[in-house]
Structure formats: structure tokens, C-alpha cells
């Protein structure tokens, strides 16, 4: 078989598709194993979104409306890199989250918590040449969900990354360090024990701005490349 351009994820990285504690997976997870596919041009190319014009305001979720949203202003920053530590330059980073009260700007969110007219909750930014990205937002609240009795999602920010190829596409969630709800969350705990802590951001005192905002760091690691280009395999 042709050597793969992008390495397969190590065992113990991603959740099992069927993670029954997270009830929605039961009817929505394939029962048959995925067919292993040699990586062709279809898999090693992918949308880079290079021509997508981003508004400067899209990376500051506190400035998208008439006034400042309620809640604790925070900085979320980090680096998009691959398993070999190489930067993913110009990576498009997309995020979405609920407001400080735990309510999404979404018609399906029926949680009895106030909407904030000054918080929309969606942001995008393009990383720099070294893969560094930075958002300003407010700390999202915890929110209840119907998975089981007294089920609460720990505070989290949804992240979407394309990386350099179709094969590197990733959607994930960033959590906050030491959140007591993590221990009870079937979505967080769907990730194998040895890997789930990677989804916790770390408090970043150095990037915290005096008199202004706490900072959290969240590095995102996408699939790395095999050393040999596949054409030479």
C-alpha cells in the first residue's frame, strides 16, 4: 500500500463513534468500521479558505454588537500546529459558544437563561505565519442538557479547523482548566482517558492583561505528515 501522506491518529486519541453514555451517539454512529483509504489527491488537498475575507471584528466577540456583552471578558489564544510541532500558517480558526448565562444565540436553545443582545457567539480569525491565533470573548456559562438527570455541559468553546488537507479537518471543543463539571460530562469523557486533558485550555498569566482580562491558552495539534512524500513511496 502507498505510504500515507498524513499519519493515522494514534490509538487512544479520538472518541469511539459509539459512546453510549452520550445518548445521541446510539442512533448516529456507524456500526461498521471505516474503509481504510490510501490517501490520494482528494485527501491530501483540502479547503485552505485563503480567499475568504475576514472582518477584523470577527476575532473580538465582545465588539460585534452595540455594547459590551455581559460576562467575564477573556482572551483565548494559542497555536495551530501539527504533530511534529510545525506551524499551520494562516490556518482559519472558527469558534462558537454560548453567552455568559449559558444560552446560545440559536432558536433551538430552550434553556431558561437570558439571551444577551450584545453577544452573538461566533468568531473567526486567521492564524499568523507561525500558527498563532487570538480571540477576545467572554467566558461561556455552563448549561443543562437532556442527556441524563441533572446533566450539565462544562463551560466550553467549540473550535473548527481545516488544516492543510481534507484529511486534517477537525472540529473539537475547548474546556477550562479544573472545571468540576468535566468529571460528569459524557462528551468530554468520550475521549480516551490519556488524551482528554488535551482539550483543557491552560490559564495563561503571562498573556493576562492587567486591569482588563484573564487569558487562556489552547494549542491545537493537527495530523502530522510522514517524512516520505507519497509520490516516492
Amino acid at each position, binding site marked *: 500500500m*502507498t505510504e500515507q501522506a498524513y499519519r493515522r*491518529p*494514534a490509538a487512544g*486519541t*479520538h*472518541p*469511539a*463513534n459509539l*459512546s453510549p453514555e452520550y*445518548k*445521541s*451517539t*446510539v*442512533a*448516529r*454512529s*456507524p*456500526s*461498521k*468500521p471505516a*474503509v*481504510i*483509504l490510501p490517501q*490520494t*489527491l*482528494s485527501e*491530501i*488537498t*483540502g*479547503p*485552505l479558505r485563503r480567499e475568504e475575507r475576514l472582518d477584523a471584528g470577527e476575532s473580538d466577540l465582545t465588539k460585534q454588537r452595540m455594547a459590551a456583552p455581559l460576562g467575564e471578558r477573556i482572551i483565548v489564544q494559542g497555536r495551530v500546529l501539527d*504533530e*511534529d510541532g510545525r506551524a499551520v500558517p494562516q490556518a482559519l480558526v472558527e469558534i*462558537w459558544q454560548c453567552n455568559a448565562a449559558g444560552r*446560545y*444565540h*440559536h432558536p*433551538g*436553545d430552550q434553556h431558561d437563561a437570558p439571551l444577551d443582545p450584545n453577544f452573538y457567539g*461566533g468568531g*473567526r480569525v486567521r492564524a499568523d505565519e507561525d500558527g498563532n491565533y487570538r480571540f477576545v470573548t467572554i467566558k461561556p456559562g455552563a448549561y443543562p442538557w437532556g442527556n441524563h438527570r441533572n446533566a450539565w455541559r462544562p463551560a466550553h468553546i*467549540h473550535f*473548527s479547523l481545516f488544516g492543510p488537507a*481534507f*484529511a486534517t479537518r*477537525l*472540529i*473539537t*471543543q475547548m474546556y477550562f482548566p479544573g472545571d468540576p463539571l468535566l468529571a460528569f460530562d459524557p*462528551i*468530554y469523557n*468520550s*475521549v480516551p482517558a490519556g488524551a*482528554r486533558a*488535551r482539550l483543557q485550555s491552560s490559564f495563561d498569566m503571562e498573556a493576562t492583561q492587567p486591569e482588563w482580562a484573564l487569558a487562556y491558552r489552547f*494549542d*491545537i*495539534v*493537527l495530523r502530522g505528515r510522514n517524512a516520505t512524500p507519497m*509520490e516516492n513511496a
Partner: protein
Amino acid sequence: MSHALTPSQTIGPFYFGTLANTYRAELAPPGVAGERIELAIALHDRDGAVVPDGLIEIWQANSHGRYNHPEDRRNLPLDAGFEGFGRASTDKAGVARFGTVRPGRVPWPQGGLQAAHVNISVFARGVLNRLATRLYFDGDPALAEDPVLKLVEAARRPTLIAKRDGGGLWTLSIHLGGAHETVFFDG
């Protein structure tokens, strides 16, 4: 390997309205070369129920069979305004719709060409990992020799083949489980 891969999580139910302004259901502005087609991709769960809160992304070559990406270094034309990326959520009927052009064929690493196809990513609440699959075109004589379809047991190949529904509309049902479970790929 010096850095550990970031694990995947579900897109959840509430991306719509925040990721919505980045939708791209029309891939080919006027003037892009090729046969214009529409894709209707329906998403079903294991029990056949529609999935109205899913997100479908597509990635495809242009009509010349060229991907708009630096890894595709072949001397084939790129079309201005055509990236080849689409994103749309499923509607109440569980269907995501795209307007695009029929892709050309792209090479197989060991030689020859693959049959024309569109690459698909599926995301939804309850789907913890991105599910990757492909859309092929019914009636394409190249299907019989496609090296990817040959990796799939014959009985399951129809799950990857869109049917023409009059005019330029192609429909494909993706089943996350059940008797008609779609073939997903680990590429």
C-alpha cells in the same frame, strides 16, 4: 512526533446561527467552466429518521479535474472564483443542498484515474468524529474501474452513488447506521 493530536468532539446542536454566515452552498459563480449540477444530500440516523441538525461539507476538483490546492501541481486549469469547498446545514427534512459543477477525474497514486467524485464530511450532534465519505455519479462508466469503489464490498457501493433526479439534480442519502449504512472512509 513531539506533539499529541487534539481529539475530536461533536459539533453539537447549536452551531447554526454562529457558523451560518460562513455557509457556502453555491460553489460555482457564473462563468466557471463545466456542467452545472445541484446536489441534495440527505442525512438519516440508524433508524431512518432524518437528521435536521447536521452539517455537510464538500470538497471537490473543478471540471478539469484540478484541485485548488498547492499539493495539486498538475498542469491543468484553475477556475477563478472556484475553490471547490461547500458547507451547508441539513434542513428540517434532513437535506443539505449545493450548487456546483460536475468534477473532473483525478489521478490514483498507482496510476490511472479515479471516477469523478465529491468528497464529503459529515458533522452532527451525536457524531463525535468527522465522518468522511464520497459521492459518485450514477451511470458514470468509470465507476466499474474506480479503485476506491473496488475497496468497498459490492453490496455497499450503492451507498456512495448519487442518482440523477431529472434535470441537473443529484440526490444521495447518507445513513449513519441501519440496513443502508453508508460506507465511511478512513483516509
